[in-house]
């Protein structure tokens, strides 16, 4: 019962937050120099004032700003994201087209980084002070410090150009005509490099955090009690230490999950992955107002949803949290 009321309360707050974000975004994007008409005219190689005036009128940019804001807010309230004049498509369709690729990439990298990060963290904590612990922490530090862009290019150079093991670009083999399982296998091969590259940083973070947290918890009294009871090492680690050590990792995972939509711009760019991060960046450069506002809004909604989910996961990992509130 209390869980449901909490969630309902959070949802109401979330709706208000989202609306505020939408309005703020609107002003931010309009504060940037230039507008979509000027960009389109700039690309045309020639323009006269008539041409630009025509574009502005078509895009509704000739209206006063408050009129534009009002029509935008009305659209948002009716869940209409508007029309991209640059791409000649409803923004909803544009986002829906790009969302699957991004979710596939970011979710796989999320799963990879979280599972490997926790696994290595546990392993390192269990061997604290030994050589294997040092090797693992050093590697994690390296991943943590490597710029994503560089790591991505190096991955392409090594695994795609030099070794030729994996495709370096794109979502699938263009024009291959694959379908069904063959297509899934093809996409999986294309997915490996970008998902791993994108996951490296967070994997390192999860590993370091899990390791530190495990070490801290293992000093606590209830662990000594468990040991005194005669429980085996692996059982103590799994049931007593890990479960308590996971809370900070969950917090961080919630943060990473919030970035599932917008956080892969660089990876998508280097690997030519047709995702939403690139759509956002390109729309920003083109001042494609409706598209960029749409992507922002969807990302903001995603962050809020994952915050709520994180809270629920807290309660599952540590039931005491729900009881206290």
């Amino acid at each position, binding site marked *: 019962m209390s869980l449901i009321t909490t969630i309902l309360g959070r949802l109401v707050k979330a709706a208000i937050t989202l609306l505020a974000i939408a309005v703020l975004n609107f002003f931010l994007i309009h504060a*940037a*120099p*230039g*507008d979509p008409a*000027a*960009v*389109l*005219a*700039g*690309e*045309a*190689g*020639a*323009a*006269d*004032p*008539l*041409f*630009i005036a025509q574009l502005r009128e*078509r895009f509704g940019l000739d209206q006063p700003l408050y009129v534009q804001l009002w029509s935008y807010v009305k659209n948002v309230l009716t869940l209409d994201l508007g029309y991209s004049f*640059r*791409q*000649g*498509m409803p923004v909803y369709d*544009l986002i829906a*087209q*790009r969302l699957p*690729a991004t979710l596939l990439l970011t979710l796989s990298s999320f799963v990879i980084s979280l599972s490997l990060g926790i696994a290595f963290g546990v392993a390192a904590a269990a061997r604290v002070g030994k050589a294997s612990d040092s090797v693992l922490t050093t590697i994690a530090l390296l991943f943590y410090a490597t710029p994503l862009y560089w790591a991505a*290019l190096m991955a*392409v*150079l090594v695994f*795609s*150009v030099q070794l*030729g093991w994996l*495709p*370096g*670009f*794109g*979502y699938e083999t*263009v*024009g291959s005509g694959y379908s069904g399982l063959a297509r899934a296998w093809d996409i999986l091969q294309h997915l490996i490099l970008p998902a791993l590259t994108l996951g490296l940083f967070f994997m390192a973070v999860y590993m370091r955090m899990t390791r530190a947290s495990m070490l801290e918890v293992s000093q606590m009294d209830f662990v000594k009690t468990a040991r005194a009871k005669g429980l085996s090492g692996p059982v103590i680690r799994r049931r007593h230490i890990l479960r308590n050590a996971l809370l900070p990792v969950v917090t961080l995972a919630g943060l990473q999950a919030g970035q599932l939509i917008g956080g892969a711009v660089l990876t*998508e*760019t*280097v*690997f*030519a*992955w*047709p*995702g939403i991060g*690139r*759509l956002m960046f*390109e729309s920003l*450069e*083109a*001042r494609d107002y409706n598209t960029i506002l749409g992507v922002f809004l969807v990302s903001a909604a995603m962050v809020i949803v994952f915050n709520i989910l994180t809270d629920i996961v807290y309660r599952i990992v540590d039931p005491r949290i729900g009881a206290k509130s």
Partner: protein
Amino acid sequence: MNFLKTTTFLIAAGLATPLLAQDAGGRIDIVVQPEPPSLMLGLVQNGPTQLVAGDIYESLLRYNTDLEPQPSLAKSWEISEDGLTYTFHLQDGVKWHDGEPFTSADVVFSADVFLRETHARMRSSLAYVDSIEAPDDQTVVFKLKTPFGPFIGVFEAGTMPMIPKHIYEGTDYANNPMNATPIGTGPFKFESWEKGSYIHLVKNEDYYLEGKPHLDEVYYRVIPDAASRAVAFETGEVDVLPGGSVENWDVQRLTELDNTCSTGKGWEFFAPHAFMWLNNREGPTADVRFRQAVMYAMDREFVKDVVWNGFGKVATGPVSSKTNFYSDDVTQYDYNPEKAKELLAEMGYDGTPVSILPLPYGETWQRWAEAVRQNLQEVGITVDIDSADVAGWNEKTSQWDYDMAFTYLYQYGDPALGVSRNYVESQIEKGSPWNNVEGYRNPEMDAKWAAAAVSPSPDERTKIYSEIQKEIVDDVPVAWLLEIEFPTIYNCNVQDLVTTGIGVSDGLRDAWIKQE
């Protein structure tokens, strides 16, 4: 006798082999960068759009690398003695991609109705046109108000694409749903567009030229990162890198790869001409001596050799040496810092800082701005480098909010189309980065530009343009930098890739793949 036989046989074999290979079809992957906003060439004319849409749409003529008109949708044409009447005879049996016949009514609709409304560059040429008529299905007659020398140069796909009347007549052009699936007469048909990944075109089986196109399909690949584009070529993922799609320092490395060819041809029509707008209205740049000092202070050969890796040619004035009407009888601004310092001392330059706005088109342009800053600092000019993204650059230049701003303009084959717009007073108007942004005013010169445009005699035009170049180069309204060369890099198996002065952007009508 035997010898003769053998020779004949060899010749026959030599002819037969490429023909067989030419017919073999195949597929080409080309980089398109950035992803075009639309493929409807009548509505959008930016570079990436034309690169892809050049396969789908055609115009009445094409232009070879010497910029001479060649048949395209018009098989022949006549220009009257007085230069006022242009008569075009259309090819027989041309069909739109949806099967409808292409006729002179489509030409009249495209030029007189559609493009007049949507195409800024075409509109300024159409101002010289009195009437466009179709006496029969296969003939179109353009009548001009006054002679207009460059008019024979406007029948190019990006300037005057043929638009299907049966699809667009009476509709709201910008919102016509058919814009998403463009219909042209060109050698390739639109098949699909996976946004963010690729655009797929397939062979037009009903193309009016027997045996063409040779290729079965073309994929235009969207790869947003310059380094990744270079790698994509290295791994054989793409066959063609159109000019400007990789950074200059990668060009040399890539051209040294096995079976890799490159060509600087195919840019004669556009002839990109780089310069810096110098704000003629205010600040130190308003003084002609300062502007001359800038010209002497810059080591433009160094920039060409280092920043552009040797590609291009230092510009001597407003007209590109790649186009007609170029004259080198002008003051030469060699690298001469001493002379620059003298000029600055003479004007009494007080150290007022000037800002440089680079073009936000990648590393090369950033480095170029840095090289210029260093040159200017060496002669005692205080310089800041400004920065902006593409939209910001557009805003600053078109609102005249700059001291010195990098840009490059296409010449479009004739000074009256691509050059004069940057120097005549009637083109001073805020809101566009494609006109007289520097604010140069010279009424005497304006009269000459106007006279050269409408003179029916090419010799007369040459004479006037030479005078203009001689005079304007001393005024330094802008700082001319470089005739840019964008080499097209491609797999050597691809043959006849660049056959016109517009190069890859003119479509792959003639391209074929050599089988090994």
